[in-house]
């Protein structure tokens, strides 16, 4: 049973070389490319080492005591070290591109809040500013899951959603928070993962480039509902996004501030 599964896996990997979830982020193709050649290079090292091992076992009865040329291990070591350096340099450049610089000033702000076992997404509204939240005001049943403080005027137009909707082609700047324990904010399709840590506000930014829906998972064990803690990212056209946000804004202003 396991052997045929491994073979099946090998075939499927050959068809889609990395097996990764289909991507839709601007930085995705570069990362996928890096992942692919890393996997291939290391797979070749694995096969070469095992070929060496099997050959050593097969020639064990040879009566002559022919040893490998003395230089061979050193050449191999040098080549492998060069490969490690190359990997590190290329990967660091991509990491620096994604994380060292902040988002562009016109990037769209969305706050992501994790709590056991739910993700919330808050849009700052027309004033482009998030209202103050207080943990003691949190009341999910009463319609205030994030504890927005009604005395803060900036919060009156804040929209809280359980779906993350983003316009395609515009950079999103996420501000990650957690109310209770550490959660892991993971969108496989966006090649994006960062923990939501209580007490910290962490920023990650990316640009969705392909319209579609992408699962959002929790990747850090957070309690008994960990595996259920999922949400949806919906990447839509800019027009559709404006219509969606405007409808939410209207509903929010009609219902009045909590």
């Amino acid at each position, binding site marked *: *049973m*396991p*052997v*045929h*599964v*491994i073979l099946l*896996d090998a075939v499927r*990997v050959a068809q889609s070389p990395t097996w*990764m*979830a289909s991507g839709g982020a601007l930085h995705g193709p570069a*990362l996928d490319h890096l*992942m692919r050649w*890393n996997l291939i290079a290391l797979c070749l090292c*694995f096969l070469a*080492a095992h070929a*060496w*091992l099997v*050959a*050593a*076992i097969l020639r*064990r*009865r040879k009566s002559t*005591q022919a*040893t*490998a040329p003395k230089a061979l*291990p050193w050449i191999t*070591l040098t080549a*492998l*070290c060069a490969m*490690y*350096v190359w*990997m*590190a340099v290329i*990967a660091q450049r991509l*990491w620096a591109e994604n994380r*060292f610089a902040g988002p562009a000033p016109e990037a769209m702000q969305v706050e992501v809040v994790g709590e*056991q076992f739910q993700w919330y997404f808050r849009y700052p509204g027309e004033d482009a500013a998030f209202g103050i939240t207080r943990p003691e005001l949190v009341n999910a049943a009463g319609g205030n899951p994030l504890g927005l403080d009604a005395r803060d005027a900036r919060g009156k137009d804040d929209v809280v959603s359980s779906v993350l909707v983003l316009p395609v082609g515009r950079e999103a700047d996420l501000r990650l928070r957690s*109310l209770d*324990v*550490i959660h*892991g904010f993971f969108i496989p399709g966006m*090649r*994006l*993962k960062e*923990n939501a840590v*209580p*007490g*910290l506000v*962490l920023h990650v930014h990316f640009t969705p480039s392909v319209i579609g829906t992408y*699962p959002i*998972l*929790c*990747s850090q*064990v957070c*309690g008994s*509902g*960990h*595996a*259920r803690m*999922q949400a949806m990212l919906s990447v839509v056209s800019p027009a559709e996004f404006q219509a969606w946000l405007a409808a939410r804004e209207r509903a929010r202003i009609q219902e009045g501030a909590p």
Partner: protein
Amino acid sequence: MRMRVFTTNHRALGILYLLLALAAVIAGTLLSLVMRVHRVWPDLALPFFGTIKPEDYLALVTMHGTLMIFFVLTTAPQIGFANLVLPEQIGARSMAFPRLNAAAFWLTALALLVLLAAFFVPQGAPISGWTSYPPLSAVAAAGPGEGAGMDLWLMSIGIFCLASWLGAVNMLVTILSERRAGMTWSRLPMTVWAWLVTSILTLLVFSELLAAIILLFSDRHFGSSFFVPQGDLVNGHIVGHGDGSPLLWLHLFWFFGHPEVYIAVLPGMGLATSLFANFARRRVPGYRLMAAMLLVIGLLGLVVWGHHMFVSGMNPYAGTAFALTTMAIAIPSTVEVLGWLTILWGGRLRLTTPMLFALGFLSFFIAGGLTGPILAQPVLDAYLHNTFFVVAHFHLVMAMAGVFSVFAGVYYWFPLMTRRMMNETLGKLHFWITLIAAYGTFFPMHFSGLAGEPRHYERLAGPITSFSAIAANERGITFSALLLASAQLIFLWNVFASARRGRVAEANPWEATTLEWAPEMARARVERGPYEYEILANETNFHPQWELASKQE
């Protein structure tokens, strides 16, 4: 009987440590089988367990990891084998502190009992994983098992820290001060070098872990706030009144957690070197280099902990720094692997069971080690972190390599424990099934991880995702895991049957050179290095480290 149980004899204690690790590995394996079956058939009611609730699954994960890492992989290859042969390998009469040694064992046994007790308290065992990230682990209301179960977990690991610390002091002092005249540094068997490094690592990092555990315990019970931030809201109650940071725990934990991996695997590296030399009948080329690389791996291991934290909220520049130190550790590891491959290439290989398991260790060390450079790169780890890719990585490089080195050691040193040989046919059968089933279990996990499947998910299908594409893969893993576990029955049978009725071992049955095989320790003089094997035209020859002093002297 009383005399035999409360012994201070190091070899008896070594056997007791191995039996303790055996009990822990049986318990940990059974837990993992329940997990595997549940992931594939989530609604199946299991005998003794019934239907598994989500928190039960997380408790199984936590206890599986804790048992395997602390009570199997830290215990057997390091203090277990060291008690068995370290004093003899350096020509000492006993460990430096025999009573401390016995105390360390009984503390370890107590720690195991306290840990297992967590299953039987209200709400059961903790669910926060073996890494116990706060606030989940700091607040009893954060989930089932985080009350009494978590307290027991902390107590157990606290006791274990103390026990490991005592064991490491004992090992370190023994190596430094109990060597027989003539046992110079360049004549130490590679296992002794490995134990030297692991005992230094253990002293440093287990002391530090103990401090972290005490801080977390204090957060839970004494109102301090090291790890819980202001305004933290758990289960409807504000529990954060100070200004602690969960990230502090991550730093403290992984400063311990990464060297811990080397504590588990370095003894296997030392043992593999000795076994390759013995069963290839060759000297170790670059002995000094390979010993130095063990030290370098241990030292670098102290400065790579941040690679567990690339997505934790740590500064991205720190991510780069830790990525570079982590890539650096690939270099001494590569030197070790190339050293082993060089020994094997020119050797006259004797494929005995211990040799096969040492080769298996090498195979897994390569297979799991090679995904290290991928996970060392923050940009790739940001996708793979906490997915099954990581589970595949450490199960190959730490768990399987570690366990194969333990098997190699048990088959190799069995005559020292029982004066009998283990059955070679059963040993080889055990090896081949275990090798194939271990690859079948852990290799496909790479594919689940690349598909984005996170760890700690009790079932594949969630509200949004189905992961149906990897369902077949997951079923294959479960079947393979069942086969892997069943194959260990062959080993258990072989151990207990051979201990009673195995072929009686002749003196030095493997034609080894190191001192634990010397026929009369009292008269043995250390005369040469540890790996004096040679291959002549049609013969092989070897020169043991010892010469027996004549009676007149």
